[in-house]
């Protein structure tokens, strides 16, 4: 009898060990944190929360999940946090072009290339706006005027020089053979402020994201000379010609993607590759994109990594030219 009890116990134990050994690699088995490197309400926060809601609603991530805001330093606080968690498979973070820009200008002390790119998710584009009664009717008009006298044409954006609003037009100008360092940029603390300065006739044009421009474009107070997408958008903004169709081979994407920690394990990486691919096809995700007027720009981890390499080179070149690279 003693013996049989022993055997039974041994069997149960053995089974338990085997079972738990089998369960260990089954990712995910723990709560997940999605880090938003901005405060609630910012762009990074919006994508982090959308990701959270979709994964939960579509039952793709069955463990608890939360978005945490690591605010400060244009994303530096969030990046420092993620690097502290190196190798942790249950930490993810969302970023956009400032990840690259702030690496090149040395605002970030870490190298973003050590992060594990999981997927590029969505993208937004820049538009160049003039007042409805402006003498410039096309991008070519505007560029010709800038070429003639760069000092006379001032343009405004909603962020510091050397960040997206500024760099987007610099990239276009450079392709048109204009030295971007000669452009005169006025920085405002938000696209809305830049827009009212345009409407008041204080600057010639504004470079801003489509989200901020939409209302004014529809109201007819401003006219969008060009959008930086590869092909025209559909929907409300379908009438805006691309930079490309106006003869310059330039696109500018304000992408947003999700990353794992440096040194994320292979099983976790594989799980995310599969899951995010499924996620972008779900009705919840699609509904969220329409609601926020975001364009789907899904690319898997490997393609995303290649994309980031190209972006890095392009930004590096532009920012060296402008003196922002350190």
């Amino acid at each position, binding site marked *: 009898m003693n013996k049989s009890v022993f055997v039974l116990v041994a069997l149960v134990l053995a089974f338990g060990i085997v079972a738990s050994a089998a369960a260990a690699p089954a990712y995910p088995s723990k709560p997940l944190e999605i880090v938003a490197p901005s405060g*609630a309400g910012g762009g990074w926060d919006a994508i982090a929360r959308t990701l959270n809601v979709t994964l939960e609603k579509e039952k793709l991530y069955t463990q608890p999940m939360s978005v*945490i805001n690591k605010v*400060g*330093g244009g994303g*530096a606080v969030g990046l420092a946090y993620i690097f502290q968690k190196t190798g942790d498979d249950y930490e993810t973070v969302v970023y956009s072009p400032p990840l690259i820009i702030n690496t090149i200008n040395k*605002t970030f002390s870490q190298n973003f290339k050590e992060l594990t790119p999981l997927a590029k998710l969505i993208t937004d584009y820049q538009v160049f706006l003039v007042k409805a009664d402006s003498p410039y009717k096309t991008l070519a008009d505007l560029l010709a005027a800038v070429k003639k006298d760069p000092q006379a044409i001032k343009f405004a954006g909603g962020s510091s020089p050397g960040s997206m609003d500024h760099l987007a037009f610099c990239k276009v100008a450079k392709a048109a053979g204009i030295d971007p360092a000669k452009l005169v940029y006025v*920085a405002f603390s938000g696209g809305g402020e830049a827009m009212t300065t345009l*409407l008041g006739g204080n*600057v010639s044009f504004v470079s801003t994201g489509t989200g901020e421009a939409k209302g004014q474009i529809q109201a007819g107070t401003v006219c969008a000379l060009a959008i930086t997408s590869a092909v025209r958008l559909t929907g409300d903004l379908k009438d805006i010609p691309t930079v490309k169709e106006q003869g310059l081979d330039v696109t500018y994407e304000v992408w947003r993607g999700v990353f794992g920690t440096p040194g994320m394990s292979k099983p976790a990486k594989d799980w995310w590759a599969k899951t995010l691919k499924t996620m972008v096809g779900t009705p919840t995700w699609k509904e969220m994109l329409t609601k926020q007027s975001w364009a789907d720009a899904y690319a898997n981890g490997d393609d995303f990594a290649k994309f980031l390499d190209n972006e890095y080179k392009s930004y590096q070149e532009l920012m060296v030219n402008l003196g922002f690279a350190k």
Partner: protein
Amino acid sequence: MEFIQHITLGFGVAATPFNLLLSFVGVFLGTVIGVLPGIGPMTGIALLIPVTFGMPPASAIILMAGIYYGAMYGGSTTSILVNTPGESSSVVTCIDGHKMAKAGRAGPALAAAAIGSFVAGTFATIMLMLFGPLVAKLALRFGPPEFFSLMLLGMTVVTSLAGRSMVKALFATLMGLAIAMVGIDLQSGVQRFTFGNIQFMDGIEFLVVAIGLFALTEVLINLSELKTAGKVEMESIKGGLWLTKEDWKRFWPSSIRGTLSGFFVGGVAGAGAAVASFVSYGIEKRFSKHRKELGEGAIEGVTGPESANNAAAGGSLIYLLCLGIPGSGTTAIMLGALLMLGLQPGPLLFTTQPAFVWGLIASMYIGNIMLLVLNLPLVGMWVKLLKVPSYLLTLFILMFSFLGVYTMNNSVQDLLLMTLFGLIGYGMKRADIPASPVILGMVLGKMMEERFRQAMVISDGSLGIFVTRPISLGLLVIAVLAITNPYWKYVIQGVKKLFGNGGGATPAAAA
């Protein structure tokens, strides 16, 4: 027609159940803050800013404005019953209000204060409604140079926040400017005074400074006076609350005088609610039919100043919303809060955020009526509040301060900074350095610098842009007049002397 549309839009926003509730919470808390001597509207609003995160901006301002004008009502209660002003703007109400209470007329005194406040509050709201859209018509003509000149004009408000010493006020303003410098500079993208600390890159949060300097300082002051605080002696309310026929007859002239003088002196001229109440008392002393009774418990000594401080509060809200200039310490805090909500108060606000502005205006009508109800039949309840021991109150403020600042960014560094500012604030209070110019410097200084440098880029570096554009020039002239205001009388005296001595002979020759 446009006008009716605006008002309908406003009530549509203000009369939603959520906003009605917030309006009620605002005026309720405002009254509490007004009644309690230890805590003022600046502290109250600073503490509540974190609660407004995630609310629509209209709801947030409805709450904050409710606290602001609610405190003006509540402040009079303690003045009348305890002879201790709940707010600096109710100091003068003590004189006649408390005498009335001693004479067994506490009821009419409280009623006169509340009704006077109501009349003035409603008047200020109507002015905001009429005046705002006029300013808004100029809105698009405000580019960076105009804004810079406007901010400069706003900076001259410091003379009215100064209290006794102008030098100390300027010191505090400079301190605010220095704090605003920390972080990444907008025009160049360069880091300033961050000392390599990544959390400093976005600058020092306005709320950290505001809560530190006001709420924590209040706590420290309360704690240091805990032992010496005596027992509160209170007059009871005898008899009815209602005014007699004779009271009514004396009420109207003084209330109207108080409202007008408060609105123009305290609001439009930016002297603040406390000054407005003193000015009104002075006017009553000079022009009232019953001026001889003033100081002995005359009703005019209550209605005048209480109308004036409410009208001044409304007037400075006009400044804040239409021009983005804080006319008082409290509106400086509110400006910071609005900026945090992503709104830029100023001439554009009426065009870009009509629902916000008209919602606020409508809520002020509703709030003033709520306050009348809260402060008249329920006045007995507020009086009981004074029995809350001050150590309990202190604990509450402490708890809300830390909670509020931490929820903002989940940052421990913010908590440490706030504590530091609390200690600095305590030191400043002991040295009699006013704290509100710090807020003024911090909020206006940052915008002023940005606007200045934007204007410089636009003008290719020429300062002429500020004087060649008519609106900007006009604002600069007004700013110069505002700063030199205290010295005019010497100039006028001098001129008079010159002409008085006249007849061709110079003084030297006459001697």
